[in-house]
């Protein structure tokens, strides 16, 4: 992996966040406490004169890692975030699409309705997954939260024309252009705080973070941000190789996204 020009990425992300702020009246962002959505918050602070102007939602199934919860409390306080925790309880044996794929979107629907949000910032990146590489920067979701992927609106020249048009909300994707290595290079440049689970302990680290049921660490000796960047420059494995749901096939992922999965 080779990193892209960070200034160019930063300029576009900030532009997208400000466009969303001007276009929509009631915005929220999803925050999983992972590196991507935390980087998005760092960009929002830059876009909006030092503070995150919209509420951040954590869909909490109560089985995230203890480190993740303490990181949430730490950063919410430090950056004065307006944090909304929406609980999404799971059956103890639920795993993969039965858990993230069904429970979480239902909880998200509920919290979006309760607060009347008309736009949701989601920190997905194109390089994560084949299906995610089909997304627009702004993308409408219908009344049932579905993604009409066969008939997406035109989106030319950074003019995001998506409108609600009777749908439930518009998804905003400010990090679509970023790759994994760009995120880590930016974390380094801006000294963005990250969850300690990303760093190797006893020869393993988490490369992508989900909850305790679905995430396994990968072999690694990268104990610092610099070492992670070095590791990514030569890696041949997939970022989400430690996520059980992604191992189910592409069709499952596509159905999930169409149904409103993040």
């Amino acid at each position, binding site marked *: 992996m080779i990193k892209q020009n960070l200034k160019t990425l930063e300029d576009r992300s900030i532009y997208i966040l*400000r466009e969303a702020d001007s276009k929509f009246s009631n915005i929220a962002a999803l925050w999983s406490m992972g590196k991507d959505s935390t980087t998005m918050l760092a960009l929002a602070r830059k876009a909006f004169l030092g503070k995150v102007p919209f509420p951040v939602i954590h869909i909490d199934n109560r089985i995230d890692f203890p480190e993740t919860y303490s990181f949430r409390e730490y950063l919410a306080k430090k950056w004065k975030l307006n944090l909304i925790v929406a609980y999404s309880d799971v059956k103890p044996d639920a795993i993969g699409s039965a858990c993230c794929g069904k429970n979480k979107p239902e909880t998200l629907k509920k919290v979006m309705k309760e607060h009347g949000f008309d736009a949701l910032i989601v920190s997905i990146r194109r390089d994560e997954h084949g299906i995610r590489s089909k997304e627009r920067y702004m993308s409408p979701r219908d009344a049932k939260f579905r993604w009409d992927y066969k008939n997406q609106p035109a989106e030319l020249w950074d003019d995001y024309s998506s409108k609600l048009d009777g749908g439930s909300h518009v998804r905003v994707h400010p990090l679509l252009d970023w790759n994994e290595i760009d995120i880590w290079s930016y974390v380094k440049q801006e000294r963005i705080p990250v969850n300690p689970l990303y760093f190797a302990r006893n020869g393993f680290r988490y490369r992508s973070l989900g909850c305790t049921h679905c995430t396994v660490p990968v072999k690694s000796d990268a104990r610092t941000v610099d070492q992670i960047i070095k590791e990514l420059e030569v890696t*041949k*494995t997939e970022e989400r190789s430690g996520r059980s749901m992604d191992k189910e096939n592409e069709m499952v992922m596509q159905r999930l996204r169409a149904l409103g999965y993040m």
Partner: protein
Amino acid sequence: MLGHKDHGKSTLIGSLLMLTNSVSRARVEEAKKYSSKLHKSFEPAFILDSFHEERMGGLTIDVTRAEVSYKDAAFSLIDVPGHEELIKNMISGASYANTALLIVSAKRDEGIRDQTKRHLFIARMLGIDNLVVAVNKMDLVGFDRAEFDQIRKGLSAFISRIGFAGDNVSFVPISAYMGDNIVERSGNTGWYRGKPLIELLYEKAGGAEGKNDGALRIVLQGFLGGRKDIVSGRIVRGHIKVNQKGTCIIPLDINITVRGIIVNGRGVKSAKVGSSVALKLDRSVDADVRGSILCGEAYCPIARSAIRARIFVTRRLSGRLSIRFNGMDIRCRSIKIIDQIDSTTGELIKSKRAAELNAVDAELSLMVKIPAERFDETRELGRFVVYSGKEFAGIGIVM
């Protein structure tokens, strides 16, 4: 990445990704597994075409972007659908490109098609200057030089007629499926003296920023922090300095001075083209600034409601017409067609009817004045999307 359907666009990107090691082994394996599930031999296109419907039908429905790493560069390949009815998605994808890679199949009965030329016509209209033509499926014609030359000759006149400069155009014979001339020169085409495809793309990577000259243009997005004296925007041309003299906001016609500039969180003395900026003004602005332009008053666009434009038409121009310009929806009062241009020949047609998939030169009369400029003057302020009701109906450039 342009070209007629089934001439191999997605296959070529799949090959480029694999041969430059830009894609993980897991993704290649996934594509292989899916290929065999559909009882097909391994199809590199599946690395890109990830929708189930795309794999079943063997077509690209919507734009995909993929990152290729080569030497010290990372560049994005934008795959677009080749089918006529998906031209809206093709235009969306192409609007983000600075180089066109056109695929033409050398296979018997494929060759140069209307859609091949139409894609080039659109690319040129969108302002793309660089062109690489990859003549594909050379393995199916025995790597015959005559087949390659025939396609080159068949396209050259059209390419120069629609305005590509000869120096910016290259042709390369390839087999996307077999990997010939993709990253290394192939032994099968000893007669070809040029570079492999990836080198041609590498030479053209980067660039394509707005003009960084004396003419300042900042497209304003809105106010920040609930204050009427701080605005956000993007510099699409030129540069701005703190306390710069003679700046104004049009079409509001307000003279202002910029007292402070923030670029991506940091206070700075000046900012250049491409930057997202927050600007502290010397006064509050009462009107809504969204869609207005901050510029130097000595040389600024004049807001007007009558515009002469070239429009590529994708849908009949009827009913309630509007244009999307610079983030705003603007109603059209009327449209008068002056000429029609055949997008597959680049020549004028003597019909005043705006036929789909051709271009027209037209006079537009708008309900409000907009700060438009000629496309060749300031691209960002010289282009728009046409809507008929809620439906995408075409793209236009101001002449």
